[in-house]
Structures are given as C-alpha cells and as structure tokens.
C-alpha cells in the first residue's frame, strides 16, 4: 500500500472539502465539551494546506507532506494544530525511507501521542488514530470501522485537552478531534490512497 504524490493530493483535496463542509458541525461539537473553535481551526488550516500545495506545486511526496505539516502547524493553532502538524511532520520525515502507508501512519500516531501525551481511552483524536492504524495494518479498514472508532469516544470521560475540565460531564459527547480525524480517514478511503 504505497502512498503516491498523486493520491496524496487527491486525499488532501477531499479532506479539505470535507472539513470545510463540516466546519460548523465540528465547532458545535467543540462548544459542547471544549471552546467551540475546532471547526474554525481546522477549516483555517486546511484552507492553508490547499493554498500552499497549489502555490508550491510539490513534485515529491516528502515535500507535499512537509508543506501540509507546516501549513497545519502555522495555521490551525490550539491543540489540534500541533497534533495534526506533528502527525504529518512525522510522515514527512519517514517518507524519505519508505512510502508505505501503514508505516507512515504508525509514525504519525507515535508522534501524535508523544506530542499530546494522550492514551487510548482519553477521549481524544488518538482514539480514532490508534484503532484505525491497527485495522489498516490488518487490511480491514472500512468506513464502518472509522465510524465505530469515532463513536467510541462518546461514552468516554475526557482526560486530555479542554474537555477534561468537564470531567464526567464530558461523557455522552463525541470528541471533535476524533470526528475530524474520522474525516481524514474517510477521505483517505475515498481517495483510494492505499489502492
């Protein structure tokens, strides 16, 4: 399952579109258990990713991943910025050695956990990334699996990020970062990246 530049660009285009479409929904989710800006943050970031990729026209995957990481890091802000940014930066770093999607995502999720310190069950995007990377490695990733991972955050009590200030009151709500991560992987499947 090799990640090519072409597929990667399609993926990012679809992801940006999805985020833009779901911007208000993501912010709504965030206003329930956070500060209501996740949709705006992600939309601002993905707009920058699209513009930056369009302007710089990368000719190799590493450059494309790096451009993505930098745009996310410098435009998203908040908690999601460094997390998504780190994930793509780790992929960029590894992509010099391998373009295998599984391995890239394994590196990404490791970076993400290192940056944010979240474990499985802490009600963060990590609760989507971890199971999905596992399913992908087992070649079992489907839209349903993604939905399930996203939904798994609903009954959890947040231990990291702003939602953690709610304590028990965070139970019963989807984690916004998990939802946006769900979109990342949905659009990855749509773009047939691994095919």
């Amino acid at each position, binding site marked *: 399952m090799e990640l090519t530049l072409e597929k990667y660009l399609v993926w990012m285009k679809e992801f940006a579109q999805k985020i833009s479409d779901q911007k208000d929904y993501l912010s709504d989710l965030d206003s329930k258990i956070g*500060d*209501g800006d996740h949709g705006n943050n992600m939309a601002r970031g993905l707009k920058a990713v699209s513009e930056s990729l369009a302007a710089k026209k990368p000719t190799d995957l590493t450059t494309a991943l790096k451009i993505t990481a930098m745009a996310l890091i*410098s435009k998203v*802000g*908040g908690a999601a910025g460094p997390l998504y940014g780190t994930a793509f930066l780790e992929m960029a770093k590894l992509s010099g050695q391998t373009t295998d999607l599984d391995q890239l995502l394994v590196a990404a999720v490791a970076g993400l956990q290192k940056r944010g310190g979240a474990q499985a069950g802490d009600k963060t995007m990590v609760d989507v990334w971890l199971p999905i990377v596992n399913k992908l490695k087992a070649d079992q990733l489907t839209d349903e699996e993604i939905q399930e991972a996203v939904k798994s955050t609903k009954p959890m009590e947040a*231990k990291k990020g702003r939602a953690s200030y*709610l304590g028990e009151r965070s139970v019963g709500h989807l984690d916004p970062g998990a939802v946006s991560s769900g979109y990342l992987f949905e659009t990855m499947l749509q773009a047939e990246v691994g095919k």
Partner: protein
Amino acid sequence: MKKIINDPQDVVAEMVDGMVRAYPQLVKKIPETFAMIRSDQASMKDKVGIVSGGGSGHEPTHAGFVGKGMLSAAVAGQVFTSPTPDQIYAAIKAVNTGKGVFLVIKNYSGDVMNFDMAKDMAEMDDIPVKSIVVDDDIAVENSLYTQGKRGVAGTVLMHKVLGAAADQGASLDDLEQLAQQVLPHINTIAVALSAATVPEVGKPGFELAEDEIEYGVGIHSEPGYRREKIKPSKELVAELVAKLDNSLQLSKDKKYAILVNGMGATPLMEQYIFTHDVLNKLAEKSIEPTFVKVGNYMTSLDMAGISLTIFELADEKWLDYLNYPVETIAW
C-alpha cells in the same frame, strides 16, 4: 451577538494592528505575524528575553504587558486559540540578545504543545530557551491523569515578577528558578455572571439564568464547580477566599499580594466593592495585603465576572518585583 467588529475572521489582525498603531512608542509587530515586541528591542543588550502569549480575547493580556520591566514579546493566537509555533519562534528569535529566552505558558494543552514546538525550533537554532507553565486556577483539581490546573489571571503577576528580575539582569537559569519558586504561591479562583461570546462562534460559551452565577469558570468559558443563585458580593467573596485559604493556608504571619481581575464586562465599581469585601474578609484573619491591584487584566472577551488571585510573598524580593517600575500599555 452585538459587537463592535468587522468580519469576525479579522478580529485578531485588526486588533493587533490597532494596538501597535495606537502605541508605537511601546510595541511593534513582527511583520507577517501577530507577535508584538518592545519598540526599543533593538537597544536591548545582555538581558534575557521574556515571551508570553496565548489565544486572543484576554486583552490587555498579553501585549498590554510588553515593555521595559515586563515582557519582551507577546504572541497572539486566534480568539481563545493558542498561537502557532512559527509565530512564537519568530518572537523568540526577535528578542534573544544572546542570553536566551524565557517562555511563560498558561497550562492549556494547545498552548503547551505550540510553545513546546517553538522551543524545539529555537533550540535547533541554538537559542537557549526555558519556560514555566502557569497553572494558578485552583478551581480544577490537579491530577497526573488530566491536563491539570488551568493558567489564568495569576499569569500576569508571573509576568511582572519575571519581567522585573530580567530587567535587573537575572540569567535564564535564575529566571527558571524564580518562576518555579513563585508558581505554587500564586492561586486564583473566579466567579462568572455570564459567558464570553467568541466572534466566530456568535453565541455565549454557556448560558446562565438571569439570577445565576457559576464558581470556578476558566477564562475560555470552561465550566466551573458549582452554579447557584446570585448572592451579595460579601458571600461570593466568602466562598472564593475559603477556597484560596484551603489551597494557600492563609496566615497572618505571611505577606500577600492581591489581584482582583475583571473579566471584561464587569464595571470597576463592582470590582472595587468586591475588593472591599475581600479586604474585610482577610482582615478577619488579621491579614492586610501589602500589594493590591484591581482592574481588567486577564479578561475573557465580554464575560461578566471576576477573579481573585492571592500571591503569597514568601520572599521579600517578590514585593519589590511587583512594585518595580514598568513602561507598558496596561500594567
């Protein structure tokens, strides 16, 4: 939402420009960023730079405290959203005189991660960087398994203390030690009468009934620990001082500084009445603070409410630092 703004997407850009154009003698912007540094930065020599920052919406924090004797730079993020590492890094580079840079970070996951990334970038440039993560809000219990306590109005006192020390020539290591010593002695707790409305969101972060208040809210409309009917100022003070007494073990044999902080929409009249009640409550414990400051310092947009910070002056020098003269927009 009724606000004096233009496009909600432009609030930070326009605010930052308004600020640097209003006070060119004090602050200037690093081009292409929302980072503001001292206008006299070029003349700075041999002093450690102090950089703070965070989401916008807490004005005059942080840029209002940039200037001689306080911060070297402030980095503004989007509203209630941490600034990005590239901007923080730009500020670090701009204020480093060769003696390194000290970062003051409020304990929010976004802030911590973005400042950490900026620190990594600066270290790749061989700029020595150290930092403190301020977590003065005692409303939230600390715990290894969570994000821990939040950083709120006490951060302003941290800026003041470190800024004075840096201006007097403290080294990067001195500042780190000072910050760590000071940190546990600054405790804050708030009460909200209404929540803030983020311009891009367009509605308040939470709703309180016309006769309700909430104790322990954060500066981004994070929930507090209890809601109840509004009470006289005296009783609000009794609740908040009891919490602070519990965490700081207030004693008549110690010295204290007090910061009464309006959250944005609370008039000074109410802040002074509240202060009056705080001083009475402390007097019951035979405590007379040696330093008191009242006003809007760490706000939360148009939130109505107030926070009380008590800073135990465990070291005599700390009072001197608080009284050290500064040239800033807002101290």
